[in-house]
């Protein structure tokens, strides 16, 4: 057809293809000027960032589902629990950022103290039994 090219045989001419993609790139944050006059090789970074954002959103929604599930479970468990039993607590928020060095040391220290306490209790119980 006159005035039309089919570069590498896509079904659209380059002009049609460029027009069609413009709205897609604008939807993921590329400005009109950057799309038409910017470096096209940079567009891939927008597309990759868009995928990462989608992934992040999916994880956030999953986490929200987890919190809701836990909240419902806790409410039901407490509602039907025997009288006098210790009520279930709502879960702590899930940590999504890596622990700092200080926090890691603090956790290791807590773990160490717990082992010492367990061993001490076990030793005392053993002594009582031996007497």
């Amino acid at each position: 057809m006159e005035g039309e090219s089919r570069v590498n045989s896509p079904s659209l001419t380059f002009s049609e293809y460029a027009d069609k993609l413009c709205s897609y790139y604008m939807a993921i944050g590329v400005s009109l000027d950057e799309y038409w006059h910017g470096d096209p090789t940079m567009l891939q970074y927008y597309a990759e960032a868009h995928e990462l954002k989608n992934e992040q959103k999916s994880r956030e929604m999953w986490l929200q589902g987890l919190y809701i599930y836990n909240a419902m479970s806790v409410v039901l468990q407490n509602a039907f629990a025997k009288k006098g039993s210790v009520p279930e607590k709502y879960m702590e928020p899930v940590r999504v950022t890596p622990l700092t060095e200080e926090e890691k040391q603090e956790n290791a220290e807590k773990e160490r103290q717990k082992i010492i306490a367990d061993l001490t209790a076990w030793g005392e119980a053993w002594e009582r039994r031996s007497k």
Partner: protein
Amino acid sequence: MPRTTLDFEYKGKDYSLGYDIETVKRLDRSGLLAEIARGERPLTMTEDLFISAFEVNHSFVNQKVRRDIYNEFSETSEDGSLLEVLLEMINEVREAMTPKGNVPWRVNRG
């Protein structure tokens, strides 16, 4: 990785030629890309592609200067390597703008 550019110095001034989507679209609407895709080789094809590559970074350079530079270029590019580079640069635009796996891409062999 940034786009491929054709860099050179002419009369003490640095030039960096390249294509953006708008420029390639204009080339397409002029019918030149269609002719190339059909395997035709218009006489002024390389010159037209070369001159249009100024639009991105040197749009204020007038046509006469662009042609003068082209004439000097063509003297040192008789093997068609200039055309090859320009076509590669155009193809790079098309490939770079194609989202990976997001747009339906139909091959028309008819």
